[in-house]
């Protein structure tokens, strides 16, 4: 009886096989669960609300003689707008037009001033005085050299060639730029000749060991340099700082230091007046023993000075990424969604419907990753694009100083946060596939990604362990949020607690991506091997 019926032929043309229908299907799945869509909106809201809370909860006031105003001490800013330290002793004279200065440096010594003040860090178990052995040591970044500076105004543009305590000859300009010359310490038997020439806005630094054979250290352009500038010798010595971070806290000590430099064979070519005057640039809170001075005997100058010519570092509270604390809350909401996006299908048996509709399982995983990653990126981008400018504005209006960043860095912080959320969700999706349980997967992501970050930046762990955690775990990806760079020419605590990651932004992000890729690869293998 069945033989009379022709086998059925379907009439709907199936079309080409491809990846696009899978992505379309997974997107339809995501958007048709109202709880998930609400979760995304909640994540955006959390990111923004926590930025507002952070901004509103942080006030800076300055009180003088009982009169208070909003706003802290306005830091000196360099030509790039970044806060800088511009404190040194300057023996100078005006230079009109082109010219050069040549000196020989025969010594650079230094000492730590006693009772220079001890500052303890947050969570510290108390400060301690500098170790006695270090008292007469010259600071590694103590500087003595020649400089051409726009004016004696702190923060004005400059270029300088110098010898340092233990980093050899350097040429630096405008606070953030530094290049190395010959290494080695300076002494009477091994002096250094330094020369800096100015021609328009071009400054060139040279060094020599004998005053005959000169080696170029570098050339810089200082745009907008006035025709008359200040030229001369300078000495600076950054404060001694020691900080140790251990389990549950840290302790540190800080003291003023002063360095002494001896210059001879000083000659200035070009339109210089010829009389030297000495100025302590940016005296501020310097104690009297740290204020610099100079003595001239013939063409030999003995100059002492404290301070540093460098960008301000090691302060996390003034960074724009501070406005992104809500990204963690957003991340947790999103990884819950990502875990449910796959593990929920296992729980309900829906995975069989999915895999029966699309037998190429690795493609299903890829489509899910693309959908959840894109959703998380959009959520992060929207949240961060509102949170950063809004939080920054509130912080500023409450008198807080915020490090200015270039628009490119700002874009990296915002888009990078979105990317970290996206890759974190892919990691959660992969773990959800491997573990087939949403709660286990979410817990795993929190443990490997969120927890290491929180433990590292909150001074719970010793700095060394914190740095290794932020190199090795998926939490390394948060490095992409670091807006202020670490400067090798400034000795500071470049530790997670101060907002510095051990890896550069993109390398840290690559570590996170590597984890997500490895988890996704394992997930794909297991998804193909296991019975659904």
């Amino acid at each position, binding site marked *: 009886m069945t033989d009379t019926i022709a086998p*059925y032929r379907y009439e709907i043309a199936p079309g080409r096989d491809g990846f696009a229908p899978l992505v379309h299907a997974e997107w339809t799945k995501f958007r048709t669960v109202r709880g998930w869509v609400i979760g995304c909106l909640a994540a955006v809201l959390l990111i923004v609300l926590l930025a507002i809370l952070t901004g509103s909860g942080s006030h800076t006031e300055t009180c003088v003689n009982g009169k208070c105003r909003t706003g802290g001490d306005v830091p000196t800013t360099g030509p790039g707008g970044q806060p800088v330290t511009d404190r040194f002793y300057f023996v100078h004279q005006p230079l009109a037009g082109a010219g050069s200065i040549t000196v020989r440096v025969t010594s650079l010594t230094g000492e730590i001033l006693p009772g220079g003040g001890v500052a303890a860090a947050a969570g510290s178990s108390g400060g301690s005085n500098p170790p006695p052995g270090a008292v007469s040591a010259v600071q590694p970044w103590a500087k003595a050299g020649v400089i051409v500076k726009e004016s004696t105004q702190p923060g004005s543009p400059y270029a300088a060639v110098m010898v340092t305590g233990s980093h050899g000859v350097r040429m630096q300009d405008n606070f953030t730029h530094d290049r190395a010359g010959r290494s080695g310490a300076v002494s009477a038997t091994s002096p250094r000749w330094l020369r800096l020439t100015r021609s328009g806005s071009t400054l060139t630094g040279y060094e020599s060991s004998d005053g005959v054979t000169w080696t170029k250290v570098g050339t810089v352009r200082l745009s907008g340099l006035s025709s008359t500038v200040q030229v001369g010798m300078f000495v600076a010595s950054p404060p001694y700082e020691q900080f140790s971070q251990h389990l549950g806290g840290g302790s540190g000590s800080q003291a003023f230091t002063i360095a002494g430099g001896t210059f001879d064979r000083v000659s200035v070519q070009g339109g210089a007046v010829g009389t030297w005057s000495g100025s302590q640039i940016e005296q501020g809170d310097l104690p009297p023993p740290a204020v610099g001075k100079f003595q001239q005997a013939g063409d030999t100058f003995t100059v002492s000075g404290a301070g540093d010519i460098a960008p301000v570092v090691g302060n996390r509270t003034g960074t724009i990424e501070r406005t992104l604390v809500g990204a963690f809350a957003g991340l947790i909401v999103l990884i819950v969604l990502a875990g449910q996006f796959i593990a929920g299908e296992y729980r309900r048996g829906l995975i069989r419907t999915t895999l029966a509709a699309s037998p190429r399982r690795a493609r299903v995983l890829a489509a899910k990753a693309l959908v959840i990653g894109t959703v998380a990126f959009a959520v992060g981008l929207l949240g961060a694009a509102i949170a950063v400018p809004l939080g920054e504005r509130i912080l500023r209006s409450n008198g807080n100083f915020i490090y200015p960043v270039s628009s490119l860095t700002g874009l990296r912080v915002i888009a990078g946060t979105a990317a970290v959320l996206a890759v974190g969700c892919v990691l959660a999706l992969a773990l959800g596939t491997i573990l087939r349980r949403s709660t286990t997967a979410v817990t795993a992501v929190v443990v490997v990604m969120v927890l290491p970050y929180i433990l590292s930046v909150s001074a719970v762990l010793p700095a060394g362990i914190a740095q290794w955690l932020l190199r090795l775990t998926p939490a390394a990806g948060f490095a992409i949020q670091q807006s202020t760079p670490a400067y090798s020419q400034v000795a500071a605590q470049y530790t997670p607690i101060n907002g510095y990651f051990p890896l550069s932004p993109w390398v840290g992000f690559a570590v996170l991506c590597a984890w997500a890729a490895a988890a996704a690869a394992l997930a794909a293998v297991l998804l193909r091997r296991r019975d*659904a």
Partner: protein
Amino acid sequence: MKASGEPGIQVTGLRKRFGRTQALDGLSFAVRPGSVTGFVGPNGAGKSTTMRVILGLDSVDEGSALIGGQAYPSLRHPLHHVGSLLDAAALQPSRSARNHLLWLAHSQRLGVRRVDEVLEQVGLQSAGRRRAGGYSLGMRQRLGIAAALLGDPPVIMLDEPFNGLDPEGIVWIRGFLQSLAAQGRAVLVSSHLMSELQDAASHLVVIGRGRLVADTSVAELISAASGGRVELRTTARSEAMTVLAHAGATVASTGPDALTVSGLTPGRIVALLSESSVPFSEVSPHRASLEEAYMELTRDAVEFRAATAEEAAR
């Protein structure tokens, strides 16, 4: 566009072991187009495992399962080849029925129009926008069938679609399955209750402990179970028994005025009784119910199970 090869489902020599349990033990059968094939066996016989293997969801240690001559994983847009319902409860509860079908449709390059078509076919058009979590089991079965129909496939495979249905729903599914078969589709329907398949299936694949017990048409099975017996209704029981026994038949009394006769055709019985003037009101061939036939088959399977259990115990 359609793959050449044997239409329907071809299952050959499936073996699969879960730990110490041999779930499938050399199972072979075919599901042909144009009829509804019932897939019967006690719980745990391997019906669902077989269906998962056919859909490429579970791997096998040995054997093959082909759809229209092709292995499932090699199918592109497989819902155009096989529509299936494995578990009516496999739904995201907060997604509406219509959206559930919509993502499935999108995965096969189908549009929303097809979704509305199948919703109407299973009678869910008015409930389509409600959360699937609020559906009764009967509505979920209908939704699962709608999903199986989405790609308008030549092969349809449903695992226990009668579960949780009210009598009206069972009648509806029977008619629906027969109409699908009448369109030339191959339809495989599993059940652990033979009575559900009564009047629905025309062919039966009976399995027990992962092995084929019977692969037969319903008509053959019933006639085999009926065993050529004839029902006789008469007020003169003892006379009839004497006459028929004399003619070589085996006669059993089954009621005050009912006898079951073996060894004679109905025509010969009528002739013998008329010759001897024994009154009778009805002579009809005995027709076993599907349930009876199935009980007979699975009794063997149960005995076989008991025997192997004894062996294992020894």
